[in-house]
């Protein structure tokens, strides 16, 4: 099926990303995982503070990453979130995912779109325990049985040092 970049498609992408953010805020992880294709890759590389002239760049595929996951890896992480003994999640972290700067482009395949966005994750726990994490995302969304699905996601953080004790959500 060919996707035309019409207004309806762009609106559909916006709605899709907003729904995804709402599922994460509500910790509805199994439903969130259903938004991915079976062959999805979710990658959040570690970011190093390197010079502009350094050919290594600040991140790369064979290097350490917060996430370098296929769907079965994501499922394991979700299993921990859902566990009654995930002590760090109780009382729950109150997450807010804000998605912005959405741009929709044609994908490499006719049934795919390339979507850029920025995500801000505000996380609050206990009384004043809070952190704000930022990321720029590049997604490949694919039309599967009429629905949009995430086939590939890359999240690049601006943080060379994560300003938090952990990363207990997805971006």
């Amino acid at each position, binding site marked *: 099926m060919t996707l035309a970049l019409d207004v309806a498609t762009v609106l559909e992408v916006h709605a899709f990303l907003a729904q995804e953010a709402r599922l994460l805020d509500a910790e509805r992880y199994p439903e969130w995982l259903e938004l991915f294709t079976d062959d999805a890759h979710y990658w959040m590389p570690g970011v190093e503070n390197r010079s502009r002239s350094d050919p290594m760049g600040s991140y790369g595929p064979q290097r*350490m990453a917060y996430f370098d996951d296929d769907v079965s890896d994501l499922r394991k992480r979700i299993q921990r979130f859902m566990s009654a003994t995930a*002590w760090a999640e109780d009382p729950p972290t109150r997450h807010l995912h804000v998605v912005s700067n959405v741009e929709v482009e044609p994908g490499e395949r006719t049934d795919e779109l390339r979507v850029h966005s920025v995500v801000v994750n505000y996380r609050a726990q206990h009384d004043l325990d809070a952190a704000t994490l930022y990321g720029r995302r590049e997604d490949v969304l694919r039309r599967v049985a009429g629905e949009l699905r995430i086939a590939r996601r890359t999240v690049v953080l601006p943080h060379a040092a994560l300003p*938090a004790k952990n990363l207990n959500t997805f971006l």
Partner: protein
Amino acid sequence: MNAGLDNPAVDELVRLPGLDEGRIDRRIFWDADVYERELHRIFARCWNFVAHESQLPRPGSFRTAWLGEDQVIVVRRRDGSLGAYLNSCPHRGNRVCLAEAGQARGFVCNYHGWSFGLDGALRGMHEAGVYDREPGFDRGALGLTPVAQLDTYKGLVFATFDAEAPSLRDYLGAFTYYLDVVLDNDEGGTEFVGGRITSVLGCNWKIAAENFAGDALHAGWTHASGAEAMLGRPVPSLGRQPESYHVSVNGHAWEFNLDTVGNAATLDDPVVLDYLRGRHADVVARLGELRARMVGSISSVNVFPNFSFLPGQNTFRTWQPRGPHRTELHTWVLVNRNAPQRVKDAWRKGAMMTFSPAGVFEMDDGENWEGATRSNAGVVTRRQPLHYGLGMRSCVEHPELPGEVHRGQVNDANQRALYRRWSQLMQARSWTELVAKDAA
């Protein structure tokens, strides 16, 4: 001038008078004067881990690293040797290296163009002619300040600011017997995979270091959810392991049992387990039967003061002090250099899946350590001693294992050993004084 060093109350506190009865005063995790003394007497004095040699492959390769709150540039020099210098210009004090790693011909201060070679020597200044006309100006006396000693042990690079410090070999002592389990189980040696992940914890650095030094107890409780996610079952009861130990040498500590692959199994990757099982006979030939069973077993390690790792998961990390209540965590992943690429990839991914800020095990640690630190803000809370009294009579002689050996992995012996060394260093006015006491 220095409340940490000239304070009789701190003198008394760091003696840790309750330690031999299994009690520790909580103020050592909170007090700013104790922290200040740690920077002088622990971090400016001990051998600190600064790099793996594989991260510095050729002349000009550099990394920045920390000894306490002092930052150094660790660099491969033109002659192939390693150097480390304070990352601070002797002119106005600015940093001369702003990248955490890379490849450089030298280091130039962005402020006034003072320029330093890979050997740390001052090479030039902006408007050099003006300086050269200045009577008494001596370039030779104005290089970057080098560390007092730098040395390597089987790929790991350590540095100390203290010229009196014993050699690295003496500092590690018999602990090298244990370090070889991870550093020398294959003839090709080891390397770090690319990259570093850094995060910030609101905890005292010692709470993290002592966890890796000896806290097998927390594994089954804190990490119940991580084990369920990765193994589909709880962590086995470690208190019933017939052959498990706490061992320590000079405050360096390793807790372990002999299940060979218990830690490695948490990566839930057959590539890693097949590799370890396939190499077992070779490792036995290199290290003997006992140490071969430690390669990926349920275990954890801290090299005093703040360099930790987990055999099997192969996460390597430093707990960098950033004030008494804040710690910057730097993590890397170790692999055998000769391992096939897919094995290295599996370890890189598995270590990240388990022990990174998003890892299913690590996520539950930070919360506990922050809580164990912050509660001490309460003045009454702070007066309550902490219990470190497990395994008070567990010390044994072992025919093979060197150092102070305690039977039983669920134990506080290594934590006590860590704090005993900490206490000795915090009291001693110099390494010379401490080494004399060690010998007595």
